[in-house]
C-alpha cells in the first residue's frame, strides 16, 4: 500500500514539473481530455438543437397558417416549395421525422448525456480523466460522423427519411412507399449505426469510470445524485441500444437484401411483392424495447442535474437522498418492461395490454417520489434564484404537468381515443422534451463557470427563462385540447375535416408561440458565446456548492487537480447544517474539522477518520524525505 502510494506521489510530481503543451489539434479537435470532449458534445448539441428547432418552425408554419404562401422560403428550400408556394407534403413528413430524430438522439441523448456525463463524472467523483480517453474521443467522433451523415441526408434530392422517428416498416422498408424511404432512409440507418456505436462507447466509459476511478472516500452513498443519474442512464443505454442495433440490422436486410423479417403480403400498385412471412409488429416490439428506455436516457440526466441545482440553490440537503436513488433505480428497471404501452392499438392481445398498462402506471410511483422530493427540498429553503435554479424549477413543473397526462395515456382503454393524436405530442413534449431541455439548459447555466471560467449573464438568463417557460406552456398546453378533439399527429393538413375549423385559431396561436419560443433561444445563444469570451470572471465556487468539481482550479488542466486528488469525507449535501459557520460544507472537509456541526453518529466516525488521515500523513512524510 505504502509503495503504491509513494509511486503514485512521484508520478504526480513529475506530471506537474513539466508544463504540458498541446497543439491546436490535440487540444481542440482530437482531444482526449474529458472536459474538452464534453464541450465538443455541448457545442455540437447546440448546433443540432438549432437545426431541430428550425425544422419544427417550418412545419408549424404549415400547421398554423395553412393558407400562407411560403414563397419566401424558396431560397432555402428550393424545390420543396411547390409552384403554389406550398410546402411539399412528403417534405413535411421528412421535417417531422428529422425533428424527432435530431431532438431525441442528437440533442437530448448526445447533447445532454454526452456533455454532462463527460464533463462532470471525473470532476465530481475525483478522477483524473475517463477510464479510456481514447475511447472517449472515438465516442465523440463517431457521433460527429453520424451527424455529418444525417446532415447530408437533409440535402439529397429525394429528401431525408420521412417515416417518422420510429421508422415503422413497411413504410420505412419499401422505397416505393414515399420518397424519404429511399436514400434518405439508408443514410438515416447508417447514421444511427454510428450513433449507437458512439453511445455504447460513451456508456461503457461512464460506467467503468464511476465504478473504478472514484477518489478516496467517495463511496456510492456519497456520490452526488448527478453521478447516480448518469450512471443509471449509461446502464439503460448499454442494455437498450444493442437491441435497436439488432432491429435496424434486420431492417437493413429487408431494405437492401430482400429478406422478409418485417414484410409480408404487400401489394404496391396492384403488384404483389415477393416478401412473405414477415411481421411488422415484430419491429415495433424491438424498436420500443429501445424506444421506451430511451425516454429515460433523455430524462434521467436532466433529473440528476436538477437534484444538484435545486439542493445547492435551496441551501438545503436534498430531501430523501436514498429515496431519490431508489426511485431512479426503480425507473431504470421499470423502463425495460413497459415498452408495449406504445403499441396498445397495434392489434396485440388486450390481456397483454392490461399487463403493460399495470406496469406503466407503476412508474408513476418513483416519478411522484422524485417530484415530492424536489418540492420538499425547495420547501422553506433559502432559495437563490439563479437562472439554473429557475430552469430546474421549470423542469419540475413540466415533469408534473406532462407526467399527469402520462397516466391518461398509460391506460389502454383511453389510449384508443388518444393514440397518435396531439395529446400524445403535448404529453411527451412536456415531460420528456421540454423537461430534459430545461435540465440541459440548467446544467449549462450552472456549470458554465467550471467549463469556461466565466459567468453567464444572469439577467439575460432570466429573460431567456421566462420567455421559454411561458412559451413552452403556450405551445404545448393547447395541444391537449387539439388532441382530445381528435387531431392526428404527423398530418400535413386537416382542411378536409370540417370539425377542424373550430381549431384554426388555436393552431395559429400554437405556431406563433412556437416561433417566439424558438426566437428566445437566440438570447441564450448570444449569452453563451458572448460570456465564453467576455463574461465576468468566475470565482472558484460561485454557487457555494459542496461537490468536488469546485475544488479544482478555475480552468482545470489535464488531470483536473494539480497535485493530489482531494479525498472525500462526507456526502455532497451538507447545506445549512445546524451549528456550522457557513451554510455549506464541501465534501473535502473532514468531519474532525467540524465538531460544532457533527451529528452524533458522525462524531463516532471522527476517530476512524483521524486514524486514516494519520496513516496517510506518514506516507506523505516518507515521500517528502525521499526527495
Amino acid at each position, binding site marked *: 500500500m505504502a509503495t503504491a502510494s509513494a509511486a503514485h506521489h512521484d*508520478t504526480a510530481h513529475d506530471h506537474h514539473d513539466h508544463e504540458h503543451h498541446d497543439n491546436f489539434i490535440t487540444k481542440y479537435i482530437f482531444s482526449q481530455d474529458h472536459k474538452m470532449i464534453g464541450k465538443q458534445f455541448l457545442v455540437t448539441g447546440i448546433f443540432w438543437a438549432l437545426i431541430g428547432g428550425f425544422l419544427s418552425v417550418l412545419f408549424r408554419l404549415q400547421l398554423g397558417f395553412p393558407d400562407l404562401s411560403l414563397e419566401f422560403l424558396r431560397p432555402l428550400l428550393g424545390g420543396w416549395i411547390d409552384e403554389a408556394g406550398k410546402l411539399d407534403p412528403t417534405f413535411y413528413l421528412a421535417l417531422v421525422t428529422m425533428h424527432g430524430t435530431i431532438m431525441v438522439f442528437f440533442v437530448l441523448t448526445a447533447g445532454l448525456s454526452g456533455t454532462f456525463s463527460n464533463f462532470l463524472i471525473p470532476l465530481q467523483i475525483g478522477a483524473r480523466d475517463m477510464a479510456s480517453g481514447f475511447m472517449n474521443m472515438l465516442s465523440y467522433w463517431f457521433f460527429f460522423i453520424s451527424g455529418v451523415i444525417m446532415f447530408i441526408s437533409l440535402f439529397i434530392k429525394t429528401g431525408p427519411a420521412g417515416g417518422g422517428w420510429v421508422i415503422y416498416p413497411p413504410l420505412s422498408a419499401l422505397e416505393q412507399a414515399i420518397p424519404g424511404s429511399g436514400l434518405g432512409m439508408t443514410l438515416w440507418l447508417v447514421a444511427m449505426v454510428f450513433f449507437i456505436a458512439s453511445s*455504447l462507447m460513451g456508456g461503457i466509459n461512464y460506467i467503468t469510470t464511476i465504478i473504478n476511478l472514484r477518489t478516496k472516500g467517495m463511496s456510492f452513498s456519497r456520490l452526488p445524485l448527478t453521478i447516480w443519474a448518469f450512471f443509471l442512464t449509461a446502464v439503460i443505454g448499454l442494455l437498450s441500444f444493442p437491441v435497436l442495433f439488432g*432491429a435496424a440490422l434486420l431492417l437493413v436486410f429487408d431494405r437492401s*437484401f430482400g*429478406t422478409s*423479417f418485417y414484410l*409480408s403480403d404487400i401489394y404496391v400498385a396492384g403488384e404483389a411483392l415477393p416478401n412473405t*412471412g414477415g411481421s411488422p409488429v415484430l419491429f415495433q416490439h424491438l424498436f420500443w*424495447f429501445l424506444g421506451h428506455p430511451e425516454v429515460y436516457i433523455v430524462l434521467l440526466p436532466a433529473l440528476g442535474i436538477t437534484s444538484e441545482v435545486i439542493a445547492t440553490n435551496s441551501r438545503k440537503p436534498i430531501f430523501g437522498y436514498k429515496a431519490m436513488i431508489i426511485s431512479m433505480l426503480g425507473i431504470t428497471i421499470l423502463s425495460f418492461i413497459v415498452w408495449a404501452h406504445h403499441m396498445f392499438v397495434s392489434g396485440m392481445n388486450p390481456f397483454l395490454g392490461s399487463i403493460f398498462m399495470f406496469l406503466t402506471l407503476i412508474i408513476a410511483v418513483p416519478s411522484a417520489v422524485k417530484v415530492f422530493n424536489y418540492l420538499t427540498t425547495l420547501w422553506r429553503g433559502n432559495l437563490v434564484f439563479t437562472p439554473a435554479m429557475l430552469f430546474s424549477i421549470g423542469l419540475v413543473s413540466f415533469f408534473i404537468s406532462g407526467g399527469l397526462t402520462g397516466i391518461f395515456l398509460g391506460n389502454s382503454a383511453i389510449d384508443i381515443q388518444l393514440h397518435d393524436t396531439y395529446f400524445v405530442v403535448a404529453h411527451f413534449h412536456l415531460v420528456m422534451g421540454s423537461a430534459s431541455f430545461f435540465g440541459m439548459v440548467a446544467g449549462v447555466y450552472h456549470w458554465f463557470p467550471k467549463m469556461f471560467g466565466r459567468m453567464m449573464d444572469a439577467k439575460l438568463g432570466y429573460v431567456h427563462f421566462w420567455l421559454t417557460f411561458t412559451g413552452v406552456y403556450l405551445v404545448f398546453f393547447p395541444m391537449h385540447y387539439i388532441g382530445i378533439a381528435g387531431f392526428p399527429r404527423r398530418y400535413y393538413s386537416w382542411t378536409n375535416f370540417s370539425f377542424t375549423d373550430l381549431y384554426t385559431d388555436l393552431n395559429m396561436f400554437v405556431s406563433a408561440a412556437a416561433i417566439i419560443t424558438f426566437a428566445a433561444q437566440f438570447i441564450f445563444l448570444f449569452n453563451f458565446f458572448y460570456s465564453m469570451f467576455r463574461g465576468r470572471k468566475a470565482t472558484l465556487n460561485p454557487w457555494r456548492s459542496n461537490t468536488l468539481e469546485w475544488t479544482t482550479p478555475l480552468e482545470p488542466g489535464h488531470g483536473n487537480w494539480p497535485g493530489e486528488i482531494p479525498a472525500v469525507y462526507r456526502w455532497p449535501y451538507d447545506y445549512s447544517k445546524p451549528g456550522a459557520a457557513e451554510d455549506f460544507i464541501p465534501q473535502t472537509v473532514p468531519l474532525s474539522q467540524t465538531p460544532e456541526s457533527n451529528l452524533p453518529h458522525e462524531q463516532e466516525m471522527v476517530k476512524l477518520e483521524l486514524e486514516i488521515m494519520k496513516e496517510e500523513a506518514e506516507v506523505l512524510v516518507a515521500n517528502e524525505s525521499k526527495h
Partner: protein
Amino acid sequence: MERELKYIDMVEQPISMHPKKFALWLFMVTVVMIFAGLTSAYIVRQSEGNWLDYDLPNIFWLTTAIAVASSLTLHWAYYSAKKDNFVNLRVGMILTVLLGVAFLVGQWYSWVAMVDRQVFFVGNPSGSFLYVFTGLHAAHLISGVIFLIIVLISTFRLKVHSRAMVTMEMATTYWHFLGGLWIYLFMFLLLNH
C-alpha cells in the same frame, strides 16, 4: 501522453478489476443484448405461424467441437503464460488462432449446407434468422481472432508474461465468451426449430 495515461491508471481503484477489463465485460453485455434481442425476435416471430421448418446443418456439431477445443487450447496458453512457459504459450496461441479460423470456415460451410437445403437468406424468416445469427456471431468472432493475433504478436515480443497478464486475460475472457455465445445460439436453434 503515455506518461499521463499511466498516471491515470495508477489512481487508486476501489474495486480490484482493471478498468479495461471491466470495459470489456460491459462490451460483452452489449453483445449479449444484441443476441437476446434477436433470439427473442425469433421466438416472437415463430409464434405467429407461417414458419419454415428445416434440418440444421450437421456441421454445427463439428464447429461447436472446434469452438470448445479452441477454448481449451487458449486456456492452456493462458496457464503457460502464467508460468512464463513461452514456448507452450505461443503454441497454444497459434493453435487457438488456427482453430478460430477453422471455426469460421466451418460456419461458412454451414451456409453452403443451408443453400443445399434450398433455405436461402432471402425467403421465410426462419431461414433468414439462422443466417443473421451465424453471420453476426462470425463478425464478432473475427474481432476475437484479430484480438488473438494481436496478443500472439505481443507474445513474440515477450510482452505477455506472468506479471503482464491483462491483455492475455482479456483475450481469454472474450474468446471464452464468444465460444459460450455460439453454444447458446446452437442450443437455442436446436430447441426452437
